C-alpha cells in the first residue's frame, strides 16, 4: 500500500490536453510487471493520488508509461511533472484485458478518446506475439483530429499484417482527410467474424453502451465483449468501497469486466 518513488524519465505531449509520462524506479530496479488493462495509483506529492491506466509496452520491464488527460487540479499537477522529478507509484492493480484467453482469436478493439491508452498495451502484446493471435481490428474515435492519440503508431499499426485500423472523428475541419462520424459508424468497414472474435472496449460509458449494442448486432455474445469501467477509485485494492458498482469493486474485480457482468448495471439509471 505504500507508494514507491519513481522518477519521470520522459514527458511528451500527445494532444493539447493529454500527456504521456514515462516513469522508472529511482534505484534502477525493474518496474513492477503489469498485465494490459491494469492501473497504478500515481501520487503527485503535495497534491494527491489518482488511478491511471498503464499505457506502455508490457515487455519493457524497466519503465511504466501512463497517458494522462489534464482535466482537473490533480491531473494537471501530474502532467506538469518535469523530467527528473519524483512521482509515487502504487500497483499495478486490478484485473486487465483477457489477453491469454484471446490467443487464437480475432481481436476487435474499440476505443474512444483517451480510452485508447489502456488498450495500447494489448496492441503491443498482440503485435509482439503476432502468430498467437488472429486478426486485429482497431476502431478508434476521437472528438476531432487534434485529439487523436498516438498518431504515428496508428499509422505504423495499420501497416502490419492482419491488422485493420480504422480511425474516425466526431467533427472534422475541411483539412481532415479521414473519416467523420461516431465510432460505431466504422463497423460497416470492419471485417468481423463474431464466432472467433473477442471485443475489448474502452471509452466514455455512453460510448461503450452504443458500441456494445453494435457488437451484439454484429453477432458477438456478451461473454465475448469486455469493457474497462471507470469509477472513483481511492485505495486501489477493494478496501475503501469508493468504487463499488453493484456487487463489484471496480479497482479489485475490474476495471475490465465482461459485458455479461456489466449489462444489468449499465442499464440502471440510479448507478
Amino acid at each position, binding site marked *: 500500500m505504500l507508494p514507491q518513488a519513481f522518477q519521470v524519465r520522459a514527458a511528451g505531449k500527445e494532444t493539447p*490536453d493529454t500527456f504521456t509520462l514515462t516513469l522508472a524506479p529511482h534505484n534502477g530496479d525493474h518496474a513492477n510487471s503489469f498485465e494490459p488493462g491494469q492501473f497504478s495509483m500515481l501520487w503527485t506529492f503535495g497534491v494527491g493520488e489518482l488511478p491511471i491506466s498503464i499505457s506502455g509496452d508490457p515487455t519493457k520491464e524497466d519503465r511504466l508509461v501512463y497517458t494522462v*488527460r489534464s*482535466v482537473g487540479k490533480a491531473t494537471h499537477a501530474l502532467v506538469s511533472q518535469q523530467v527528473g522529478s519524483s512521482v509515487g507509484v502504487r500497483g499495478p492493480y486490478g484485473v486487465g484485458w483477457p489477453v491469454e484467453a484471446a490467443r487464437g482469436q480475432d481481436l476487435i478493439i474499440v476505443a*474512444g*478518446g483517451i480510452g485508447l491508452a489502456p488498450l495500447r498495451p494489448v496492441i503491443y502484446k498482440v503485435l509482439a506475439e503476432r502468430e498467437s493471435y488472429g486478426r486485429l481490428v482497431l476502431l478508434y*474515435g*476521437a*472528438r476531432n483530429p487534434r*485529439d487523436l492519440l498516438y498518431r504515428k503508431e496508428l499509422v505504423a499499426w495499420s501497416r502490419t499484417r492482419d491488422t485493420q485500423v480504422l480511425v474516425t472523428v*466526431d*467533427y*472534422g*475541419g*475541411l483539412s*481532415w*482527410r*479521414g*473519416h*467523420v*462520424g*461516431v465510432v*460505431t*459508424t466504422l463497423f*460497416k*468497414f470492419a471485417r468481423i467474424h463474431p464466432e472467433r472474435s473477442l471485443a475489448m472496449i474502452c*471509452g*466514455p460509458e*455512453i*460510448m461503450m453502451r*452504443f458500441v456494445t449494442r453494435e457488437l451484439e448486432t454484429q453477432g458477438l455474445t456478451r461473454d465475448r465483449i469486455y469493457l474497462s469501467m471507470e469509477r472513483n477509485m481511492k485505495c486501489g485494492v477493494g478496501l475503501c468501497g469508493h468504487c463499488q458498482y453493484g456487487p463489484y469493486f471496480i479497482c479489485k474485480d475490474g476495471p475490465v469486466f465482461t459485458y455479461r457482468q456489466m449489462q444489468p448495471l449499465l442499464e440502471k439509471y440510479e448507478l
Partner: protein
Amino acid sequence: METLEGIIAGHPFFEGLDPQYLALMVGCASNVRFNANTYIFKEGGEANEFFLIRAGKVALEVFGANRKPSIIETLGEGEVLGWSWLIEPYIWKFHARTMEMTRAIALDAKCLRAKCEENHDLGYEIMKRFASLMQRRLEATRFQLLDVYAAR
C-alpha cells in the same frame, strides 16, 4: 462487363431486393464518376438524385457565418448519399464534396418517385430501406450530439 442491374443488386443498400424491383429501378440509374474535391450537390439545390457509392469518399459539409466550415459526416464505399430526394420539398440540406475520386450509381429521383407512385410495393420497399438508413443515422447523430469525449 458488369450491368447496372448487377451493380445495384450487389450494393449493400439493395441487398436482397426482389429482381422485379431491380428491373424497374435500373431504368432510372446511371453510372457516374466525380473527381476529387468536386461538389456533387450543394445546400439549397434541388434534390434530383441519390447515389449508391461504389468507391471513394464523400464529405457532408455545413457552414455558417462566424464559424469555419466543418465536415459532419463522411460516406464511403457501400453507402448511400442523399435522402432529400424522397421527402418534400426535395431540397439538399448540406453540401456533398468528394474527398477523393468517387464512383457511384446515380438514381434519377423524378424517375424513381414516379415509379414508386405507380407501384406502391416498390415505393414501400424503398421507403423501408431508407427508414432503416435514417434510423441508423439519427442514432449516430444523437451519439455525436452527446459529445462524449469533451472534458467534463
